[in-house]
């Protein structure tokens, strides 16, 4: 057998780029006679279809060079148990491989028909001192006609929308009735550290059957969300997320609107009639994070809203997807952005679309000025890595149907005005003197990999001449699926000490203002954008790539594109041990987190 010279060059480049690592195809686990590995008897599958689970065929010969035998490769009847993008071939060298983890789906074989059907999100209007019982439980969800065992808070997806006045404190009695340990993290809230929901840092995991009582305090108006902080890569996409709306006492906090809607964006990875299982021991899809092929708004495949002509609707947008960054618009309807994670913007702005990275929130006001239907779309530029070309991709997530009757009241005049929020600028004013100080802390974002399949290493090494600052879709789900947290390590590296991830043990004083410079190194094996989230504090994105930000807003999550340098100014106001991490669930699961201690004054 001869190896083509070009292929040898590829191999060489792979070895060069991968440095000391020795790429080898993962050796498949012992195969049951059926040829099904880790997929057999997949729980969560619809009980009444009787169709078999997708099959990952494993070659009998585990020679690591198998992936390089090109001749005769191709269709060959080997089915990849994950969906590939339309028209996209799977890589021959990956045929037959499976991730180095065993598979997990909720419910361990429970018949979905024996479970309660999921309910739509209810609104829990609570006031200071109120108590809410929040139970993570198994539910039956039907997606594209197939019933699956999934999770929900109180049987709802999204979980109850908690609506409270600013400065309220509520008690939440959390009950874990799912088959994994869990906790609840109150994303974006500057609350008491011991209720932050981070296992091993602020509390112990809540075992299945266990409970935990949270005191949840809401010091800032805005839109927040809650989700587990244990195996987010599984528990979030399976349905454990909900919004929190914190109302300001100021009646003019936002402009008047005809309706308000909270939209939670999520995606689910489904192949034929099955959910794609998760890695049991550690996350799979560790390179890019799990990018679903079924896009959901509030857990539904098609969001629907009715409005009157001229209605102004305020949308609270939250991205709860594991990895996908969205670019959202409403069929050309005029849209202004008014707020983000933890505050309003200094200045409202007209926008053609909203870029929403995982865990980010934006509040937009949209006017539907004429009767008809407006498509809620996610419109992005995908990269076809096989052709080396960009390809526009548009997913319609829902429809706003606008009737011929006119909006009442008519808020068109208020909508036409872009407000400047002096209160926000006043709140930020004391921090301006720190904007140009040298960074107190510097982080570099990078990754390391070992033992990825050879074909993956070859491909990635050749294709690193260009990486998109933001990868909007997963153009290589085969490679992504086969990468787990065992092979991939995502890294936050402290420039000053060289320490990485949980070895970083920052201490800052309560009341200090910390300038954190984050550089997303494009020269790693697979660079990618990272939405970096800091728990329990608030921060400003003061500059991107040296360009000062002239329209500030308080954030808890900031998108760091590949190759970018972003300066964050952290208001370290809240004492405790706080996690700083990438909010791509699989990146965090592959190590990308650190702790910042805010030591009490």
């Amino acid at each position: 057998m001869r190896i083509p010279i070009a292929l040898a060059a590829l191999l060489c480049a792979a070895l060069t780029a991968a440095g000391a690592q020795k790429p080898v195809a993962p050796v498949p686990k012992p195969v049951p006679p059926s040829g099904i590995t880790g997929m057999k008897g997949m729980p969560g599958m619809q009980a009444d279809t009787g169709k078999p689970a997708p099959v990952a065929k494993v070659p009998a010969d585990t020679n690591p060079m198998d992936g390089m035998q090109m001749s005769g490769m191709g269709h060959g009847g080997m089915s990849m148990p994950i969906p590939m993008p339309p028209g996209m071939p799977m890589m021959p060298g990956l045929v037959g491989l499976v991730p180095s983890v065993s598979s997990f789906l909720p419910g361990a074989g429970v018949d979905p028909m024996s479970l309660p059907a999921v309910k739509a999100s209810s609104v829990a209007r609570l006031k200071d001192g109120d108590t809410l019982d929040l139970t993570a439980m198994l539910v039956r969800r039907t997606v594209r006609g197939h019933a699956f065992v999934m999770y929900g808070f109180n049987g709802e997806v999204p979980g109850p929308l908690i609506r409270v006045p600013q400065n309220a404190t509520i008690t939440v009695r959390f009950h874990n009735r799912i088959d994994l340990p869990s906790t609840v993290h109150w994303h974006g809230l500057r609350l008491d550290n011991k209720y932050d929901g981070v296992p091993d840092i602020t509390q112990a995991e809540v075992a299945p059957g266990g409970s935990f009582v949270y005191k949840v305090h809401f010091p800032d108006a805005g839109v927040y969300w809650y989700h587990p902080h244990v195996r987010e890569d599984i528990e979030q996409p399976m349905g454990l997320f909900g919004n929190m709306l914190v109302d300001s006492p100021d009646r003019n906090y936002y402009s008047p609107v005809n309706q308000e809607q909270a939209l939670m964006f999520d995606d689910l990875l489904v192949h034929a009639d099955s959910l794609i299982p998760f890695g049991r021991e550690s996350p799979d899809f560790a390179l890019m994070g799990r990018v679903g092929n079924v896009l959901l708004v509030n857990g539904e495949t098609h969001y629907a809203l009715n409005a009157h002509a001229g209605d102004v609707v305020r949308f609270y947008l939250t991205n709860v997807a594991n990895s996908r960054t969205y670019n959202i618009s409403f069929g050309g309807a005029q849209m202004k952005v008014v707020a983000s994670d933890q505050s309003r913007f200094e200045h409202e702005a007209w926008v053609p679309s909203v870029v929403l990275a995982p865990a980010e929130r934006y509040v937009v006001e949209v006017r539907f000025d004429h009767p008809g239907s407006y498509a809620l779309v996610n419109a992005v530029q995908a990269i076809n890595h096989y052709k080396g070309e960009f390809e526009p991709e548009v997913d319609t997530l829902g429809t706003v149907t606008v009737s011929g009757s006119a909006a009442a009241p008519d808020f068109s005049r208020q909508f036409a005005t872009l407000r400047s929020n002096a209160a926000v600028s006043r709140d930020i004013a004391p921090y301006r003197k720190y904007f140009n100080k040298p960074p107190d802390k510097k982080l570099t974002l990078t990754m390391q990999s070992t033992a990825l399949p050879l074909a993956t290493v070859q491909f990635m090494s050749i294709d690193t001449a260009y990486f998109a600052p933001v990868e909007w879709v997963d153009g290589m789900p085969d490679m992504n699926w086969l990468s787990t947290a065992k092979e991939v390590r995502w890294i936050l590296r402290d420039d000053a000490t060289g320490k990485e991830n949980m070895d970083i043990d920052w201490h800052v004083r309560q009341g200090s203002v910390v300038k954190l410079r984050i550089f997303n190194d494009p020269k790693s094996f697979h660079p990618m954008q990272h939405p970096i989230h800091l728990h329990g504090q608030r921060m400003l994105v003061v500059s991107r790539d040296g360009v000062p930000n002239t329209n500030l807003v308080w954030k808890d999550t900031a998108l760091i594109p590949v190759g970018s340098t972003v300066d964050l100014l952290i208001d370290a106001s809240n004492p405790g041990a706080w996690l700083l991490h990438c909010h791509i669930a699989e990146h965090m699961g592959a190590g990308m987190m650190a702790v910042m201690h805010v030591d009490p004054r």
Partner: protein
Amino acid sequence: MILEKVGLSIGRRLSVAVVVTMLAGPTGPFDIPLFATPSVPAARGVARLVYASSPFGVAVTADGRARYDVQVTASGLPAPEKLGAFNSYVAWEVTPDLDKWVRLGTVMNGKSTVGQAELNKFLFVVTAEADSTASKHAGPTVLHGTSPSGWLQSFLTHPLFRGVY
């Protein structure tokens, strides 16, 4: 294994070439090395793409294309008059087939910021022009480069995928 021996021996010889190629490439998704032309062989320049101002983490169009301001650093450009009946240098965003030219702004020696570039892949071209407000290019090209996205590789005909298409 013959396979491994052949692959690795060729691999060692080729590894130097690969390293050199990688060093000559862009240093990130935002850097455009600019090349001179016979019109002005001494011209030098680099362009850096920075996201245009946006309330979001990245600035994009409604269909998801990045919107960039282009920070140009140039040197060695003579007074435009030296090249003929010209009075300025103008930067253009040009489709890779050279079909469509969009004016981005004027460029001088030193630093200039022009914008916005909005194409997925484009050529960045600086020409001498008779009119600094020119909306159509007419004069000679003095600097040019390719957007970093132009480095995207096609694997269609690659041995890795032989037999797939």
